[in-house]
């Protein structure tokens, strides 16, 4: 941290981006920043505002952990974990959560509405400061022009979860009349949701705390943090826990596991099918459970006959004896045994069927809705915000990506399929792009294609708190107040023990940043009276509407930062009730899939072999960063200033490459330069780089020019069932830079 403090505060930087002066980076303490801002006349100097504690929930990643902001003289001094939030976050706040303070007092944050300078090109970063009035008028003008010239469907709306306010943005899309909302699930875990949904009718939560035996495939829980799983994984119940971990890399989770197997990438399904083979061959399944709660077991038995451990060993490079033993141990520990599906992105194009195999393995040992097994999520009801999107008697086509994948979520879309059709204007053009928090340039594989997509837009507007790559390529950039400055609606967080969270402002919004509801309302007002009418409420009214059936919820949130009805799981709620599948039971054999021409039971396909002189590119998350959103945070940047390319020493020697040298990584779609890290922590046939670097935005001054972008390298292969991108189907060449 000393290095940070030595840096001097650059006043010029706090002037915002109005002069495009982006070369200088400066970090200061919060007080220094505030003083600089005060001198600049942009905010009042800190005065004796006293001290207060504010309960709210974190916005640094997907977990929404509870914290208490310690505020003194109008300055957030520190964020402490909220002990009341034990149910979800086990009263913990991670490195990212702690670094949240720097989101507010970050010189790189967005401060004012910005408009791209007339005559400049997108990506040059030439923005001028605009008034809210001008910027919002420009947004509405362009949205209306595109609607008149093409259709309402020609404006796409990209957004992502986590803000608690995203539904206002999708409401705007629906009220405007565009079917084309593009959310994050196909960049995330739509295949997981699909595979488990097809089997159980829902995607359940593994009861990590109470499971005695856990098998984890690549969901690197000690680094890709999920609360409470990441914490519970290490606690276990009385030390009985056994963790088997499969990953081509030696991650932090490998270090914590009882057994780690560097599985050959893309072969998880072979391992799982062989486990099922052992269980049914040796009659270790929970037959009583299967008879009562499932359909299709009789088709499963012959289906897995060829999938012996000996066969699987040649596929996944895990010894047959280990597969056999693990299968027996798993069945013996059941029902307190889970093959953890958890949160993990999709690696291969067959991911939905791999998830089906995982779900079936769990089902046959009877771990459904019982302590230590897979628990369907419970929820606390909030009164839904309802609205009536106007009906337009115009010829508005359906989703652009309609029919592109078997099971398309009409609200989420399928990113790569959508992009391909938009590039071809097939069957109609997409000319406007409204973005809220999402950063497709960093998150959708094949960045060059996303840049082409953006090039063909008549208009791009991004609402964000930071100058993401996508904002950098936009025409209008609107600064949202950060999660520490704004009031957010209540959010019901489902899970084994459900809770309700919300956010309340720790300090007023700084600079000219605004709550997203206000921004969206102002756009709505400018679009039409009809649309504006659906946004005619205040945030306070909205909060009270959400809890009108139980005002205690809001009371608890304001005073404790969390609402819950029980601290204990309620196991077995769904046993004996119809599940949300066609049969109402757990579907081992999926008739629905058969009817759609899909394999009704998961069939293994061998992944494409790594070509000679190439490596399989693996990507992954990191405990310090959330996707592409936090690498520029000054505190977190100090911990990890750039990403590196992991390469096994044997391969490094073959290529004549040395640890620390710069290398070029080339795939079929892009080339990036970054530092080489020669390490035994990776299989010789693969290389790895962390996500979130190699940015295009020069306004991310800490990380611009540092490391490489995985999105620039990954080819956009995707699962034809769910539309989920396949992150590990790209081969790269490594060359000295």
């Amino acid at each position: 941290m000393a290095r940070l403090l030595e840096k001097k505060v650059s006043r010029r930087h706090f002037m915002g981006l109005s002069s495009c002066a982006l070369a200088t980076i400066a970090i200061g303490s919060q007080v220094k920043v505030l003083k600089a801002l005060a001198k600049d006349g942009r905010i009042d100097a800190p005065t004796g505002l006293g001290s207060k504690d504010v309960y709210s929930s974190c916005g640094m990643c997907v977990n929404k952990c509870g914290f208490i902001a310690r505020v003194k003289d109008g300055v957030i001094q520190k964020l402490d974990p909220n002990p009341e939030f034990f149910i979800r976050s086990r009263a913990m706040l991670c490195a990212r959560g702690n670094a949240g303070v720097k989101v507010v007092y970050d010189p790189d944050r967005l401060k004012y509405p910005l408009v791209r300078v007339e005559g400049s090109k997108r990506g040059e970063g030439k923005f001028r400061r605009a008034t809210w009035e001008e910027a919002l008028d420009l947004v509405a003008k362009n949205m209306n022009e595109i609607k008149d010239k093409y259709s309402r469907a020609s404006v796409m709306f990209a957004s992502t979860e986590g803000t608690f306010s995203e539904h206002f943005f999708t409401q705007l899309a629906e009220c405007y009349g565009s079917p084309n909302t593009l959310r994050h699930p196909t960049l995330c875990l739509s295949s997981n949701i699909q595979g488990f949904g097809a089997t159980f009718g829902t995607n359940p939560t593994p009861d990590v705390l109470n499971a005695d035996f856990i098998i984890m495939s690549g969901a690197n829980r000690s680094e890709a943090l999920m609360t409470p799983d990441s914490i519970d994984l290490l606690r276990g119940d009385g030390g009985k826990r056994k963790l088997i971990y499969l990953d081509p890399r030696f991650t932090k989770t490998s270090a914590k596991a009882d057994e780690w197997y560097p599985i050959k990438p893309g072969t998880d399904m072979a391992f799982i099918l062989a486990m099922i083979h052992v269980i049914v061959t040796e009659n270790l399944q929970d037959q009583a459970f299967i008879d009562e709660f499932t359909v299709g077991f009789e088709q499963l038995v012959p289906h897995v006959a060829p999938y012996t451990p000996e066969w699987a060993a040649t596929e996944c490079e895990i010894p047959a004896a280990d597969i056999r033993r693990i299968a027996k141990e798993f069945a013996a520990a059941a029902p307190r045994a889970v093959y953890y599906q958890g949160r993990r992105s999709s690696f291969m194009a067959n991911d939905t069927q791999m998830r089906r195999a995982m779900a079936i393995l769990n089902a046959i040992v009877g771990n459904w809705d019982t302590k230590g097994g897979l628990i369907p999520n419970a929820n606390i009801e909030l009164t839904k915000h309802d609205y009536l999107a106007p009906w337009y008697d115009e010829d508005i086509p359906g989703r652009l990506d309609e029919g592109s994948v078997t099971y398309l979520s009409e609200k989420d879309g399928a990113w790569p399929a959508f992009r391909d059709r938009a590039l071809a204007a097939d069957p109609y053009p997409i000319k406007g792009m409204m973005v809220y928090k999402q950063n497709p340039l960093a998150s959708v594989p094949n960045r060059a294609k996303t840049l082409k997509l953006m090039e063909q837009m008549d208009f791009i507007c991004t609402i964000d708190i930071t100058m993401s790559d996508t904002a950098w390529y936009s025409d209008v950039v609107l600064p949202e107040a950060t999660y520490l400055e704004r009031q957010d609606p209540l959010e019901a967080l489902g899970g084994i023990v459900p809770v309700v969270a919300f956010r309340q402002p720790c300090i007023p919004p700084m600079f000219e940043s605004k709550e997203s509801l206000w921004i969206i309302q102002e756009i709505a007002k400018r679009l039409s009276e009809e649309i504006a009418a659906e946004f005619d409420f205040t945030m306070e009214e909205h909060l009270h509407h959400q809890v009108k059936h139980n005002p205690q919820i809001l009371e608890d949130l304001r005073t404790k930062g969390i609402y819950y009805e029980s601290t204990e799981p309620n196991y077995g709620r769904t046993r004996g009730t119809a599940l949300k599948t066609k049969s109402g039971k757990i579907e081992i054999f999926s008739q629905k899939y058969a009817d759609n021409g899909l394999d009704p039971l998961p069939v293994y396909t061998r992944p494409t072999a790594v070509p000679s002189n190439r490596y399989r590119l693996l990507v992954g998350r990191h405990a310090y960063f959330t996707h592409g959103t936090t690498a520029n945070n000054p505190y977190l940047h100090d911990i990890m200033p750039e990403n590196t390319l992991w390469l096994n020493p044997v391969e490094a020697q073959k290529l004549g490459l040395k640890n620390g040298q710069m290398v070029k990584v080339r795939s079929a779609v892009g080339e990036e330069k970054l530092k080489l890290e020669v390490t035994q922590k990776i299989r010789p046939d693969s290389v790895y780089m962390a996500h979130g670097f190699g940015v295009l935005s020069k306004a991310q001054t800490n990380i611009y020019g540092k490391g490489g972008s995985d999105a620039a390298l990954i080819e956009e292969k995707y699962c034809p069932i769910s539309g989920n991108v396949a992150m590990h189907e790209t081969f790269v060449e490594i060359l000295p830079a």
Partner: protein
Amino acid sequence: MKRLAKVIAILSIAAFCASAAVAAEGGNAKKGKYLFKKNCKSCHVEGAEGGVVTPMKKTQAQWDRFFEDKAKGCATKAGISEQDIKDVQQYLFDHAADSDQPETCG
């Protein structure tokens, strides 16, 4: 009450049109969503006489059965056409508890 009677009559006609396999043939689910919210919500919200109704309250087969008989008695206060009924049915069918619409994230 006149409008109510009209809707009941329309629903009765619609019952004949309901297909067990694909809900109402020729139904526009997108318009159905609008019509459902506009017309059905007057009775089917929390605290109102009809109780809360969402597409997820029934399976596809249950919705089809509903439109075969019980929809006749579904007293709404709006006058909507036969086509409107088809649209509403298609919307409810497409978003039923066991529909192909996957769960989402966030």
